[in-house]
């Protein structure tokens, strides 16, 4: 939507193969695509199509078997573990279907975690946490633990956590998969707001085409690890 045309993410013939016993599973099999800065892209496909694997590759959680993933000009495939960790700290924020908040920590502490890893000063950290929680409307629940919150609130907390280090890219893996449709809509509205007002590049994996059509600026279809289509929903 408000993308400025610069390429934020570029995958070049990316492959990710898993060897399982005698057979090789080609989860991602030669995907080349581009996401421009500020774009909201939905990755669609049935389960097992490789969309989550592709997202993990872009997130720097996984390494491609072959090919290159260039984010802001740097190839993730060439980075060492330490550089990848730094990339995950500063460049991308992630939300998951199952929220992945640490149950023993309060919301505040959960949101603070990426800032701790990024070695942000204590005072500044407090301010970042406060601002992030405020942005998702959870200021009042900051000292609660995840188990004391509803699913929607937990996903909002996860969004606040993904936001705290002010990354330029938001990666969302089925963010509404565990939520009812009303709450799911709330979450997607928040993500769209980040995309619009903060200018974050968003790549969202989903299998709900209607949601993707409504929120995403562009849809990329995957099937059996390969690109199956690429289209503007409007």
């Amino acid at each position, binding site marked *: 939507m408000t993308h400025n045309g610069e390429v934020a993410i570029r995958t070049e013939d990316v492959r990710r193969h898993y060897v399982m016993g005698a057979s090789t599973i080609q989860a991602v099999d030669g995907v080349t695509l581009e996401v421009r800065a500020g774009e909201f892209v939905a990755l669609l496909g049935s389960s097992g199509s490789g969309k989550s694997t592709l997202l*993990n590759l872009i*997130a720097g*959680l*996984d390494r491609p078997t072959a090919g290159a993933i260039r984010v802001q000009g740097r190839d993730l495939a060439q980075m060492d*573990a*330490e550089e990848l*960790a*730094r990339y*995950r*700290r*500063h460049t991308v924020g*992630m939300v*998951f279907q199952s929220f*992945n*908040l*640490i149950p*023993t*920590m309060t919301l505040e*502490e959960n949101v603070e*975690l*990426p800032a*701790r*890893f*990024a*070695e942000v000063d204590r005072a500044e950290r407090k301010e970042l946490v406060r601002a992030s929680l405020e942005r998702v409307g959870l200021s009042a629940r900051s000292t609660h633990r995840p188990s004391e919150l509803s699913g929607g609130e937990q996903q909002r907390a996860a969004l606040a*956590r993904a936001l705290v*280090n002010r990354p330029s890219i938001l990666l969302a893996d089925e963010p509404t998969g565990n939520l009812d449709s009303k709450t799911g809509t709330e979450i997607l509205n928040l993500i769209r707001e980040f995309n619009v007002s903060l200018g974050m590049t968003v790549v969202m994996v989903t299998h709900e085409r209607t949601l993707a059509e409504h929120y995403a600026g562009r849809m990329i279809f995957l099937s059996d690890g390969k690109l199956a289509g690429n289209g503007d929903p409007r």
Partner: protein
Amino acid sequence: MKTRDMLELAARNLRESKLRNSLTTLGIAVGVASLVAMLSLGVGLQELASNRLTRSGLFDQIAVYSRPEFRGFRGNDRRDGGNPGEKRDLRPLDEAARHEIEKLPNVVEVFAEIRFTSEVRFGEKSQFTFVGGLTPSSRSSEAFEKMQGSFFSGPDAEEVILQTQFAKTLADRPETLLGQEVTLRYAERQALSGASGGAGATAGAEEAGFSVVRRERKVRVVGIIETEPFSGMRGFGRGGIFIPINVAEKLGPVAMSSSVRELMRTSSDTKTYQTLMVRMSSPTHVEAAEQAIEKLGFSTFSILDAMRNLRRFFAVLDLFLGIFGSVALAVASLGIINTLVMSVLERRREIGIMKALGASDKDVRRLFFTEAGSMGMLGGLLGVALGWAIGKAINFGTNIYLARQEFPPETIWLVPWWLVGGAIGFAVLVSLAAGLYPASRAAKLDPVKALRYE
């Protein structure tokens, strides 16, 4: 991640599973406690033994003889070549030699071994016994620990201390002798200065004569002791009565062991000694002093070798006690490994989340290390306290037992500072080693798999 954040996270993780972590920490504490208790017992016993032995006077004393005493053994082969050094061998143990020895480093005192027979009279009763001279420093002997009365009022006081058994032969209740006067009747040696005058210019010291005169001296009883002080090095007889060494020297008695040869020698104006006792400031200086004295031309004797063997015994004892203690700590470290491996399994997902949020492998490894180290530190501190308490209890129990046996209380258990620091350090080290495997396992965890793990 910054160290402070690391510590905070580790602390909150440890607090999260309180029961498991406190049981693990307790395991380390018990291991450290047994290590501390065992080693302190070893150290305490060693300290006790060395103190006792040092105070027994066995190990810080050197007996010095003039060489000719031993000539009988090796004299023949020495004489073969008409050894010109013979003169030196015959060096007398006289005042000059005594001063020379006194000047050697770490020598506390040099005194003559004076012991002679005397008749002791008290009222109607009369007994023969050995009289021994005591130096002022012998006050530190353990023999005076349970003394009745007091030590000599001064180095030249005409006072005596009686040995209990002997005192009983003078009075049914020895303590009644305190403050009383007893009479010593002994033989004094007097040089006959003009006796050899007729021999002219060749008259040497050896040709001088002497006479033995009976003397009497009244002395006051000031103390009664159970055993003879520093009896270990005394060659013969048990002393029944002790006088200050200065007084003994003035009495000029005929020494017990005086050989004819010595009698001849000592009849001259120059005073010589049969044996000189040298007391060192510490047993560790004995060896060097012995060598130095032998260089001066005298023979020496000490019981240093026995001490060396004793130290070896304690080194072995410490080693064994340490091994037993370490076994307990090894068991405790298995507990740490188990706890942390369980924790890695349990926190797989959490580790995955942390990695997804930007934690590096190093961060994760350090976090687990910090947790292991903290448990070790805490367990170490707790263990030292526990070990200290165990030792205190052992000490307490031992002293109750000793008191029943009518012995004075002893410290058989000692925790030196090096042991406190060492035990805590060791606990931390063992814990870190135990954390090595779980930490690297956590660090290597694949975040994608870990996040999928439910």
